[in-house]
């Protein structure tokens, strides 16, 4: 069964790519029969978001109009993006340009040499990275080598339902941890299955509490786990105790699959999500009112977690120079503004004052949160740790089968073991 579905997908993607390239080249041949055949650059990303389902197509169409020697084609990858990409690398058929994701995926592709350094291209084109938010680009730089240029990002912010707040007699969104907890209590109505917070118990939804308590997940060089500190325990316990006190719930308990959906269903008074939830809520639950506030402040700060993505050139690219031109265009100030319409926020400081944000004030608190947000990332070899270990220990703590301290010491120990194995 497994083999079947995987081959199916690759066959499908190959045939789709084949059909589109055929269609394009024949159309091209008709219009410009005399000139040299343009170089084809395949651009890949995951499917299923507003940015990747439409906006990239429009951007590449504009690019192709102004760059006659290059023909850029978008190939969305549906399903398990990194997995399918890896099999395409094995087949030697990887796209020329791919999107690097957060959560430890970028370091994996970088460390294995699947993507190439961009420094020489950047030097030749005098491309400056100073305009990018550090939270958006730092994750894609290793030492001095730049592997990816930021496409979009979003920090977590506090989504809330103002109607439920009003009913509970709360005037505004909580600004501190204490208020957050107290409000969650007031907003919970377990009979109606409405909870103060509905959130999947996972690390990318509690790491920011650790930062807010003055702790961290790993040291900045990512050579050591730092989950055994009192600050880390304080932040993690705060998150776990919301569930233990019955004021936070897992999405499945209210019949949802993620926090944003529970908010839309009116089952959650608050949820911690990024900008991706804005178009989702507006389209799927137009009747539910929601507002966005900065994260409540913890003992030390109100640091958030950021989820940036970047464009990158693969080692299989036959025409890296042309691929670079595509990336340069996509990440340039002229095109970087388009990600807004897909519910993600800009990676360029110079674009935060653009008209789109003034006419869409819902984004203002997400943009405010951007200046203090830490990118969500892990070193190479942490796939299993990120996908399974973190979630399992968090779930055990939420269910009360282990104490927050025991869960963190397990995570510390297993993370150290993963580091010692050197990414195996």
């Amino acid at each position: 069964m497994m083999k079947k579905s995987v081959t199916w997908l690759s066959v499908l993607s190959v045939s789709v790519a084949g059909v589109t390239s055929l269609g394009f080249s024949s159309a091209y041949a008709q219009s410009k029969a005399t000139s040299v055949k343009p170089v084809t650059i395949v651009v890949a990303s995951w499917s299923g978001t507003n940015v990747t389902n439409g906006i990239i197509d429009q951007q590449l169409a504009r690019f192709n109009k102004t760059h006659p020697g290059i023909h850029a084609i978008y190939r969305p990858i549906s399903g398990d993006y990194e997995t399918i990409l890896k099999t395409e690398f094995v087949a030697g058929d990887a796209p020329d340009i791919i999107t690097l994701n957060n959560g430890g995926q970028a370091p994996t592709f970088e460390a294995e040499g699947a993507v190439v350094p961009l420094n020489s291209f950047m030097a030749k084109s005098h491309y400056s990275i100073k305009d990018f938010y550090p939270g958006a680009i730092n994750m894609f730089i290793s030492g001095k080598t730049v592997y990816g240029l930021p496409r979009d990002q979003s920090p977590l912010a506090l989504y809330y339902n103002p109607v439920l707040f009003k009913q509970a007699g709360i005037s505004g969104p909580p600004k501190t941890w204490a208020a957050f907890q107290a409000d969650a209590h007031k907003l919970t109505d377990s009979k109606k299955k409405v909870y103060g917070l509905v959130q999947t118990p996972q690390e990318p939804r509690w790491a920011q509490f650790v930062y807010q308590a003055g702790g961290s997940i790993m040291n900045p060089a990512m050579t050591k786990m730092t989950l055994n500190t009192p600050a880390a325990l304080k932040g993690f316990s705060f998150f776990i105790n919301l569930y233990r006190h019955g004021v936070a719930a897992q999405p499945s308990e209210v019949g949802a699959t993620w926090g944003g959906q529970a908010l839309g269903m009116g089952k959650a008074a608050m949820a911690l999500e990024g900008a991706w939830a804005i178009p989702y809520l507006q389209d799927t639950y137009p009747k539910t009112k929601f507002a966005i506030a900065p994260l409540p402040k913890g003992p030390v700060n109100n640091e958030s977690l950021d989820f940036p993505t970047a464009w990158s050139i693969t080692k299989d690219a036959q025409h890296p120079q042309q691929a670079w031109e595509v990336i340069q265009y996509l990440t340039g100030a002229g095109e970087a503004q388009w990600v807004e319409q897909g519910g993600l926020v800009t990676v360029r400081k110079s674009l935060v004052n653009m008209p789109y944000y003034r006419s869409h004030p819902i984004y203002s608190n997400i943009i405010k949160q951007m200046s203090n947000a830490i990118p969500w990332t892990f070193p190479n070899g942490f796939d299993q740790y990120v996908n399974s270990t973190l979630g399992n220990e968090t779930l055990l703590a939420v269910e009360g089968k282990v104490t927050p301290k025991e869960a963190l010491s397990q995570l510390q120990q297993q993370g150290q073991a993963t580091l010692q194995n050197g990414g195996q």
Partner: protein
Amino acid sequence: MAILALEAHRKSGLRQWKRKEATTAYLFSLPTILLLVGFSLGPAAYAFYLSGVSWNLLNSQHWVGLSNFSQIVTMPLFWTSVQNSVIFAAIVMPTQTIIAMVFAAILNQNLPARGLFRLAFFFPSISSSAVTSLMFMWIFNKLGLLNGFLLFFGVNGPDWIGDPRFALSAIMMLNIWSTSGYFMIIFLAGLQSIPQTMYEAAMIDGASGFQRFMKITVPLLKPSTFFIVVMGMIGTLQMFDQSFIISGGTGGPLNSTMTIALFIYQEIFSYGNVGLGAAATVFLFVLVLALTILTNRWLGKPIEY
């Protein structure tokens, strides 16, 4: 002399004819042989080779011998997946076999709207398992159909998919529902081949309906039962898609829906441990082979009337 020569000529002609016949046969089966070697046996052999290498898909392979096997047997997650798969097979396979047999026997009677019922029971097996998994996610939703039904009887249903104690049972129900119909059709075909005279003779001897089912139907369905038990066992031990979709590819909550096939998929494609995944594949192959041989000893004997 002449007769001998003629005889020799005839013999060589026969040989020639046989050789020609064999060549033609092989030529006709060549497309299938090529497909089988290229897409089934070849990859299977390659999986055996991969079980001895260390490779993460993006780097180069190097030979590590049997160390992948010694590594997986010390992994708790591997034994969790084996345990889940074996429990899953041990419950689902007998249940689906019994349900399929009973429903086949009932639908073999002259009931009104028989065709409609046959269609309804067969329908799950012609629907895509991705679609039925999504459908069951709605049924098993905490506020879904099943819990609404249970609430009608005053039972407060659990969080079927989110609770590690119930997630595997939810997939079991889904699997039984989706496979019983297909096996029912095989039993129905088996029922057609049981001579009607036996039932008549038993009726004259005064055997009740239940006795006729237990003493005639069940034993004479043995060839079908053998096929269904073997196919059911292989299918349940290799269950992947339903776990994958219901857990979102993680095998969660808390690895409660982690099956061997999902473990293999995760190790190879998600975590880049191709060697470990291939070693688990070899383990699964040996397990299925051994159980199939045992079943063959138990059910594979020809029937004696």
